[in-house]
C-alpha cells in the first residue's frame, strides 16, 4: 500500500486527463454553437453503457468501445443539434431546459434498460508499481488516448478545416457571407463534441460504477473548466481538467465519493458568484 496521497494524485491525473476530452467537447459547442449543453453528461453516460454492453458480450476493451460509443453519440448528437438546438437557438429558456430534458430523458431510458443499480466492468488486474502504487491499466490507456485525441483536435483547429470553426466562433455572419454552411457546421460540431463526451465515458467506464446519473459530475466538471479556462486553449482545458480530476479524487478519497460531486457543484456556485459575466463568449452575444 503506497501512501494514499500519491495514489490519489495518480488516479486523479489519469481520470482528469480523460475528462479533458469531454470538457474540450463542451468548449467546442460553446464556441461554435454558442450553447450551454446540459445534455453533455448524458453522452458521457451513453459511452459508459456502450462499454458495459460490449463487456457483457465478452469484448472487455474500452479501446474497442470508445469508437463505437463515439459513432452512436455522433448520430444522436447530430439529431439533437439539427432538429432541436439549431431551430431554437435564439431562445435561451428553450435551450437550457430542452438540453436538460434530453439529459433526463436519457437517464430514465438508461434506467429502464439497465436498471438503477450500479454496474461495473472488469478492468483486469492492475499493475503494482514501485512502493505498492496501484496503476490501473485502463486508466493509463484512457489517459494517453485522450491526450492523443486532444492533440489531434488542437492540430485540426490550427489546420485548414479548423479555420471555418474558428471563424464561426469569431463571427458567424462573416463566415456565412464567405459561403460557409454555418448551420451544417454547427450541427456537425455538436455531434462531434457529443462523440468526444461519449468516448471519454467509454474510456473511463472501468474506473468506476456505471449508473444512469453518472454523467452529472463530469458535466459539472466540464462547466467549471469552460468557465475558468475559456474556449481558446486546448492545453489550458487539459491542465485544468487534470487539476479538477485530482481535486475530485482527493474529495472522494478523504471524505466520501458523493462529496466530490458536491465540491464540483459548490465550485460552479462560487465561480458564478465571483464572475457574474459567466462565460465570456455567451455574455457578448447579441441576438
Amino acid at each position, binding site marked *: 500500500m503506497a501512501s494514499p496521497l500519491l495514489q490519489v494524485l495518480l488516479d486523479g491525473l489519469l481520470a482528469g486527463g480523460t475528462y479533458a476530452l469531454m470538457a474540450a467537447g463542451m468548449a467546442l459547442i460553446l464556441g461554435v454553437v454558442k450553447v450551454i449543453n446540459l445534455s453533455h453528461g448524458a453522452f458521457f453516460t451513453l459511452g459508459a453503457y456502450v462499454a458495459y454492453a460490449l463487456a457483457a458480450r465478452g469484448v472487455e476493451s474500452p479501446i474497442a468501445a470508445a469508437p463505437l460509443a463515439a459513432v452512436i453519440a455522433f448520430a444522436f448528437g447530430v439529431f439533437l443539434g439539427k432538429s432541436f438546438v439549431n431551430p431554437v437557438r435564439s431562445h435561451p429558456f428553450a435551450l437550457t431546459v430542452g438540453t436538460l*430534458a434530453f439529459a433526463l430523458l436519457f437517464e*430514465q431510458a438508461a434506467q429502464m434498460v439497465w436498471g438503477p443499480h450500479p454496474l461495473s466492468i472488469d478492468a483486469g488486474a492492475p499493475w503494482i508499481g514501485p512502493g505498492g502504487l496501484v496503476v490501473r491499466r485502463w486508466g493509463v490507456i484512457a489517459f494517453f488516448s485522450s491526450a492523443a485525441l486532444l492533440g489531434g483536435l488542437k492540430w485540426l483547429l490550427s489546420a485548414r478545416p479548423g479555420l471555418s470553426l474558428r471563424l464561426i466562433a469569431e463571427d458567424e455572419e462573416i463566415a456565412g457571407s464567405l459561403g460557409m454552411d454555418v448551420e451544417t457546421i454547427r450541427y456537425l460540431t455538436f455531434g462531434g463534441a457529443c462523440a468526444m463526451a461519449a468516448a471519454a465515458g467509454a474510456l473511463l467506464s472501468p474506473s468506476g460504477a456505471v449508473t444512469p446519473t453518472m454523467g452529472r459530475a463530469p458535466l459539472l466538471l466540464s462547466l467549471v473548466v469552460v468557465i475558468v479556462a475559456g474556449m481558446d486553449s486546448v492545453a489550458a482545458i487539459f491542465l485544468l481538467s487534470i487539476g479538477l480530476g485530482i481535486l475530485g479524487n482527493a474529495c472522494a478519497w478523504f471524505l466520501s465519493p458523493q462529496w466530490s460531486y458536491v465540491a464540483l457543484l459548490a465550485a460552479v456556485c462560487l465561480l458564478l458568484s465571483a464572475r457574474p459575466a459567466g462565460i465570456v463568449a455567451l*455574455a457578448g452575444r447579441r441576438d
Partner: protein
Amino acid sequence: MRNAAPFRAPKVSLRGGTPPARSTWRGGWLAAGIGLLLFFPLSSPDAFFLDVFTTGFLLAAFAASWDVVGGVSGQTTLGHALPFGTAAYACALLTSFAGWPLPLAVGAAVLLAAAVGAGIGTLSAPLAGPFVALLTLALGEIAHEVAVGHTFFSGPGGYAWGGEGGIPVALPWRDASPFSSYYAALGFLCLASFGMLRFLRSEAGLILRAVAGSPITAQASGVPIARFKRLAFAVGSAFAGAAGAGFALHVGRATATDLSLELSFQAATFAAVGGRGTIVGPVVAALVLHLLFQGLSLPPSVRVLLYALTLLLVLRFFPGGVVGTARDLASRLGGKEGGRSRRIRGRYRNGEGAP
C-alpha cells in the same frame, strides 16, 4: 443612487388592454373547472384517484409558484425543488425532532422557504440568462446530495433518520380521510393561485414583468432590478414552500426526492407546456399531465421520460412560449388590436435574448 428619490411605479391598470367580455368568458371556464373538481369526490370514486388528485393539486400549486419566478419574472430556475424540499424537511424536523405544534412548524417552514428563496435571488441577481439556471440547478443538487447522503439524526427507538428513507412528520391526526385531504389540497391550490395572481397584478408584479421583458429598460427607468429579482424568488419560494409543507403533510414524510432535480424539472415542464407567465396555464397543465400520467399508474421512470418528451416537443415547436405563439396566431386572424399585441410581443422576445 442612494439619495435618489424612492422608486414609485406609475399607477397603470394591467387590465387596460383586455376587453371585459373575454375575461368573464375565461372566468366562466375557471368556475366550471373548480365546480367539477368540487363535485368529483361526491361521485364516490376510488380512493386511489382521490389521492392522485390531491397530489396533483399540490404539484399544480408548485408549478404556479415556479411560474412566479421563471415565467413572469424571467428568472429560469432549475432548483425550485430547493424551497419545496426545504419546507418539507423543516416541517418534518420541527414536528418530529423539536416537537413543535404543527401549525407553528408549517408557518416556520414557509418562512424558511421564503428566506432560502431570497438567498437564491441575492446570489443569482447579477447573473444573466442561462447562468441563473446553472446556479439554481447547482444549489438544488447540493441540497439533494446532502439530504441523500446524510443520516443526520437518529430518532427515538434507534431508527436512523434522513438519507434515502427521509424523515417522518409527526401528525396530530391518525389517518386523514382521502376526502378531507382532497378538499384541503384543492382549497390550498385555489387560495395559492389567487394569491399569486393578486401579487402579479400588483405594482410589484407589473415591475417584475418589465424586468423580465428588458432588464436594461427597467433599470433605465429607475427600477432597482436586483431587489425585484430577489422579491420574485422570495415570493415564488414561499408558495413553493407552502406546497412542500402540504406535500409533507399529505405523504407524512419528507424524502430526498422532494429536493430532486426531477421535481424542479417537472415544474419547469408544467410551466412551459401550460404557457409561461400565466399562472393559470401551468396549473392546468400540471393537473392534466399529472392526472394523465399518474392516473394510468405508469412507473416513475416512464413518467419522467414522458414529461421530458412532452417538454422537448413543446419547446421545439413553440420555442418562444405557448402563449406567445397562440397570441401571434390570434393576432394574425384578428384585427387591429391583435396587431398591436404582436408588436409588443416581438419586442418582448428581443429582450429575452439580451444579457
